[in-house]
């Protein structure tokens, strides 16, 4: 796959590299990142996405790009809704609205040092995790419909969480247009028991400490102070979201044939945003997104309760406020100027985070001067980052940036290098407590299986997609 450098940290995959490309591919990467993307099949996937009907400007890839299914992970594609633009459920992914929520606190390292083992054990005991699983909320079908319609707001109305949580959440915790009637019975069956559960795989909960401030003004707006403790939650829409995508993939596979659309990979099944099937999908997707927001909201409530119980203080007195909750698998209808005309676009972000720049009207006043917080989890045991959106990001890639470190190694390769217990010992030797139900998983998710998150966020900053605000170092990791 040919690439040519088109600017600092920007590479183009020219039209023609894959038959039917309508726009070029545009990859944000440093030299090492682009070399890595060439090694696996990620660049081919960037080119494949460029064939989607109605795609505008380019098929983008963020610096944490790697081979996914259909879309590359780190992929961003916008289609022109009123000019034949399509939506692709595979471009959102199975874990609809998978994302990250960050709680900050006034606690310092010395406040928690002695209690850290108890916190790790108690978080592991209280926060449901692993495969299947029963969540913190037990919902009947009517209650689940409420969650699908109102997201985190429904959970808040039940008395869990704080009023201020919603304004510090993408879409205020509720994606509009949800249609619980578009969600299948099996999705209800899978999701019903799971609201307020972490899941398995790369999902985690981490107690962290702010160990470096890169932008003092933005850090102050985000209430992140050097040496204070944070909690990061990475989870998604659990079985409910997986089932919505599974159901919709089949529907779009048929729709695509009916519309005479051809794509290089069947997982890119898509149809015009104007089709009734697309309207139904957007309703089901928003419902699953609201489930994910409610899930992370409930998990955060569980975290606050656990801290209060272990440390013998109220969560309020510890200042455990939400910094932000971001999605990194979602499609949204957004407005941008393209070729001199404002257009309504369907922006797919698959393993990419929306990153509004300063002044954006959807941002809460507190963040308006500095831009939207972007939460970037590192690999297990390595640092994570908080970034802020930039206004250059709008024209660069529809206000999008990275979502994590990005895998560099297959699970089999990772397991060959070290066993789960060795990984645990290694992390504990570095001062990171590990509480995992599944030792094999530790090997699959070992830090060396991922790219260096700092080089990923440096590339985002170099490409002016986002800027660095604060670095968070892990103290305790809770895995499914």
């Amino acid at each position, binding site marked *: 796959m040919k690439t040519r450098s088109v600017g600092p940290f920007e590479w183009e995959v020219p039209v023609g590299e894959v038959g039917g490309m309508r726009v070029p591919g545009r990859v944000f990467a440093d030299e090492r990142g682009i070399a890595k993307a060439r090694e*696996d099949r*990620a660049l081919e996937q960037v080119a494949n996405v460029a064939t989607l009907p109605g795609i505008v400007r380019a098929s983008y890839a963020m610096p944490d790009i*790697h*081979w*996914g*299914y*259909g879309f590359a*992970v780190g992929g961003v594609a916008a289609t022109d809704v009123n000019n034949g633009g399509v939506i692709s459920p*595979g471009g959102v*992914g*199975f*874990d609809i609205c998978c994302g990250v929520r960050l709680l900050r606190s006034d606690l310092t390292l010395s406040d928690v040092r002695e209690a850290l083992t108890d916190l790790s054990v108690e978080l592991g005991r209280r926060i449901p995790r692993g*495969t*299947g699983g029963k969540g913190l909320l037990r919902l009947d079908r009517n209650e689940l419909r409420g969650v699908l319609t109102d997201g985190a707001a429904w959970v808040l109305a039940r008395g869990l969480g704080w009023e201020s949580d919603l304004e510090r959440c993408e879409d205020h915790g509720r994606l509009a247009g949800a249609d619980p009637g578009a969600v299948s019975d*099996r999705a209800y*069956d*899978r999701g019903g028991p799971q609201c307020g559960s972490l*899941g*398995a*795989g790369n999902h985690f909960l981490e107690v962290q400490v702010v160990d470096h401030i890169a932008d003092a003004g933005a850090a102050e707006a985000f209430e992140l102070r050097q040496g204070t403790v944070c909690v990061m939650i990475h989870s998604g829409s659990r*079985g409910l979201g*997986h089932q919505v*995508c*599974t159901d919709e*993939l*089949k529907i779009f*596979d*048929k729709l695509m044939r009916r519309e005479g659309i051809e794509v290089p*990979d*069947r*997982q890119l*099944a898509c149809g015009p945003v104007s089709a009734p099937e697309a309207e139904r999908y957007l309703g089901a997707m928003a419902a699953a997104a609201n489930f994910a927001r409610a899930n992370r909201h409930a998990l955060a409530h569980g975290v606050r309760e656990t801290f209060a119980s272990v440390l013998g203080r109220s969560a309020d007195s510890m200042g455990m406020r939400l910094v932000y909750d971001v999605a990194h698998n979602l499609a949204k209808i957004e407005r941008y100027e393209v070729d001199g005309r404002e257009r309504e676009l369907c922006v797919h972000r698959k393993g990419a985070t929306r990153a509004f720049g300063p002044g954006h009207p959807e941002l809460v006043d507190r963040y308006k001067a500095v831009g939207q917080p972007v939460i970037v989890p590192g690999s297990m045991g390595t640092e994570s980052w908080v970034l802020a959106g930039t206004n250059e990001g709008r024209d660069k890639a529809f206000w999008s940036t990275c979502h994590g470190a990005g*895998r*560099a*190694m*297959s*699970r*089999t*390769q990772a397991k060959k290098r070290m066993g789960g217990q060795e990984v645990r010992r290694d992390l504990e030797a570095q001062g990171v407590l590990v509480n995992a139900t*599944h030792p*094999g*998983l530790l090997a*699959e998710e070992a830090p060396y299986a991922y790219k260096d998150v700092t080089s990923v966020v440096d590339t985002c900053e170099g490409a002016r997609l986002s800027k660095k605000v604060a670095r968070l170092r892990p103290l305790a990791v809770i895995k*499914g």
Partner: protein
Amino acid sequence: MAFRILEHTADVGIEATAPDIPGLFSEAVRATAAVLLDAEPPAGAHDRVAVAAEADDVAALLAEVLQEALWRFESSGWLPVDAELEVSGTTAAGTFGVVNDVTIDGPVIKAVTYHQLAVERTADGWRATVYFDV
């Protein structure tokens, strides 16, 4: 009949081969169990549960059968490790052989994808390729 696990940067795939389509579907179910167990699934006689699936073509039908196998495991704790199916055009009906009390040492499978999904004829019979989201 045979299967192998396919490497993928983030996810995991399977390739199954068999002389005929029913055998191919059974081997793909076995491969899926192997991914979850991170080990060869137990062989021999198993309890059997009914399964039926329908799709527009044989590759999508295989994806549907594997989704049913995963749902069976998620909803009941019984893991399908083989299949005895009659496959007719775009429908499959028969039974899964299931085991319980299994330890999941492999990655958790979220879903069956259509990425590079294929059921193809070979010189010796049939080959299937399926990738999972994990």
